[in-house]
């Protein structure tokens, strides 16, 4: 396979991922960093961030941004918990309403962006405040969940043999990932997202349904955020202040995963790698033991800077090759 300019970021992501993983595996080999158990834990621990980042990937690919992600997670979690606690709603119904609500909320922001031509940054910023506020209106603090179905779901483990198990949240994450790859690579919707992010004016003139694609992208991100909120409730509580600022981690994961912030270029698989990189950094710092966990943030900051510079480099190089 030939390497084209747009594949350089994702190859860099893969290299960084392997490098970090290899370094940590060697450094902490005595404590068993290099084990299937630790690896599987990346998926379990980062399921919520991962699902939200997948939704964010589509938004960024389309040339937009969604700042409401964290707030929607908080709102969803507190909605499910208090609906079950106060109104005795069956969990399945509560989850269904939450997912629907998240999708409609995202789609609504998409509609505002589409019909009023407003910048996504501002519209989703408003959405962020709105959802966070709505969550606190439902309940001011954390509400525990205690329901046989939920307990069973939270306890659920899929044994992979050798004592390795996947939890329900990890399974939801993996399923979301596979469906997202299908959407991005094998549906017209997915390809239209790339076209929209690549050049909106051209996409319109090519006769693509750019307006509805835009709305659907935000609806999809709203759905993913709500699903991440459901994953949060598998910790058996709902909390209006859950996931504050998680959208920023999601954006970081997407960009480190090789997606151009300007849209049009990137891969869902890259985002998975981006989430893994964030997870590896975090785990490695925990393994190290003496470093403050805030070093995670510093490492993410440095990586992010490197990747943005790399994108810049790729873009200018590309311009030059087209010009000649």
């Amino acid at each position, binding site marked *: 396979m030939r390497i084209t300019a747009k594949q350089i970021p994702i190859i860099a992501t893969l290299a960084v991922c392997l490098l970090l993983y290899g370094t940590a595996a060697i450094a902490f080999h005595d404590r068993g960093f290099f084990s299937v158990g630790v690896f599987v834990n990346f998926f379990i621990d980062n399921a919520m961030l991962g699902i939200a980042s997948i939704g964010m990937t589509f938004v960024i690919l389309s040339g937009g941004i969604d700042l409401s992600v964290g707030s929607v997670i908080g709102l969803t979690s507190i909605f499910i918990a208090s609906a079950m606690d106060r109104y005795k709603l069956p969990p399945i119904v509560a989850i269904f309403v939450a997912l629907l609500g998240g999708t409609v909320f995202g789609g609504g922001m998409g509609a505002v962006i589409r019909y009023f031509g407003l910048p996504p940054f501002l519209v989703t910023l408003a959405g962020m405040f709105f959802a966070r506020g709505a969550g606190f209106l439902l309940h001011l603090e954390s509400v525990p969940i205690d329901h046989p179905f939920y307990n069973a779901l939270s306890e659920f483990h899929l044994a992979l043999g050798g004592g390795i198990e996947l939890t329900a949240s990890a399974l939801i994450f993996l399923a979301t990932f596979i469906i997202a790859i299908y959407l991005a690579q*094998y549906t017209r919707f997915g390809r239209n997202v790339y076209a929209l992010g690549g050049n909106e*004016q051209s*996409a319109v003139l*090519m006769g693509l349904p750019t307006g509805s694609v835009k709305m659907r992208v935000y609806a999809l991100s709203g759905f993913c955020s709500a699903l991440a909120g459901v994953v949060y409730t598998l910790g058996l509580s709902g909390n209006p202040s859950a996931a504050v600022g998680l959208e920023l981690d999601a954006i970081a994961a997407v960009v480190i995963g090789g997606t151009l912030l300007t849209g049009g270029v990137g891969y869902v698989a890259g985002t998975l790698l981006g989430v893994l990189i964030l997870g590896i950094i975090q785990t490695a710092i925990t393994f190290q033991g003496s470093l403050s966990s805030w070093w995670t943030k510093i490492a993410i900051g440095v990586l992010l800077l490197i990747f943005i510079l790399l994108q810049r480099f790729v873009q200018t190089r590309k311009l030059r090759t087209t010009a000649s």
Partner: protein
Amino acid sequence: MPQTVPSIEPPLLTLRGIEKSFPGVKALAGVDFTLNRREIHALMGENGAGKSTLIKVLTGVYRRDSGTMQLGGSEIDPRSPQDAQQAGISTVYQEVNLIPHLSVAENISLGRQPKRLGFLRWGEIAQRAEKAIARLDLKLDVRKPLSSCSIAVQQLIAIARALDTDARVLILDEPTSSLDTREVEQLFVLMRKLRDQGLGIVFVTHFLDQVYAVSDRITILRNGQRVGDYAAVDLSRIELISKMIGKDLSEVERESGGKAKPLSTAREILVQATGLKRKGAVENVDLTIRKGEVVGLAGLLGSGRTETARILFGIDKPDAGKIEIDGHKRELRSARQAIALGFGFSSEDRKTEGIIPNLSVRENIILVLQGQRGWLRLLSRKEQEELAAKYIAMLNIATSDAEKPIRFLSGGNQQKALLARWLASKPRLLILDEPTRGIDVGAKFEIQKLMRSLTNEGMSILFISSELEEVVRSSDRVVILRDRARIAELVGEEISQAAILSSIAGTNESSPE
């Protein structure tokens, strides 16, 4: 309104009384247009006459203010290009509008990719794309990104995309602006074939030869109004021009006639380049440009014309060869350095390298001049306005005022403004790469006159154009490139289309040197 159409069949497409205004301009003032089945219909008019606007109204990019549109006997009212496509109207818009990051194959099939069981079929997408471009005699790896293709190839791909549907109406807005003769021929063969299959084709171009080569009918627009609808055989070239620009025949004949060519005597040499070589761009190019002369650079697409210009302007570095300026050897390392030496370069790719879409016409025109003076010696607002007004009048740039963002100008008028930018900076050497692409006949004469008066003031011009007629008319000397090397040079009286063609074809190897 009864037309002079002798067919019994009802027209395929009928537009009646189409009006469209933009802030400050009435782009269309009640235009009628009729297209029949089995017809290639040229839509002609000066820059800014309203051709592209009419097409955009028809295909739902803009909403019309009033008027009716009928396709195949029933009313249509497309609200987006998507609607228009579904109604059976397939369009190639004036600027290439594709997605640079996606593959060639995907650009051709976007929005209508074949699927099975809910999955896009990438293999079939590639095969269909290969077939689609093969119809235009194009062969390339359809999996590579569109951005790696030249503008001409991108234009062909846009056409291939438009042809890859079952349309009843095909609209081509200046599809040939970057194509070479062979590619144009191939396109015409295809257009005739589609016409014979029953399609109605609308064709916009500023190349008069092309109009007469393929069109059955011609509709002329002027200032947003329809001048008339004629059978191509009944309308002479001169009549066509006179109707387009709204002057009477005698005036047109006087203006288009003859060239006043002062023979350049032994003038001082400004630039002397010898043995220029750059991998993949030029093999062996020698070039001498004297003060106050127009040197034409002729050759087929891919013969190294643009590549030579880029080296002279310091954008690309040569691997070998030397460049002397005013008799001193110079290494040009950047465009900035070239500008500092008093060079100017109007690029062929106005969309990505030229205009700054959101700046006003005035700001676009003064850009280079201001850059040269440095930001400490700002041009006063009054000076800027005077300059802008001068060039708007001189090049006849159609704009409601100088403060209009340039992206709202018609394609040809953007090109004129770009030219004005370089003219205003009064460089010592001006490199013009396809400066008249998309510019109407009237303005071409104006530009030619302007080039002459500038060289009389001492400016040198390197003029690159695919239109031989233009090269012949404007140049004091013509350097001919073939296969990336200089093969011949013609001076003064020797310059003729026939002489250029025969040396490009290689039938006449006698290079006068």
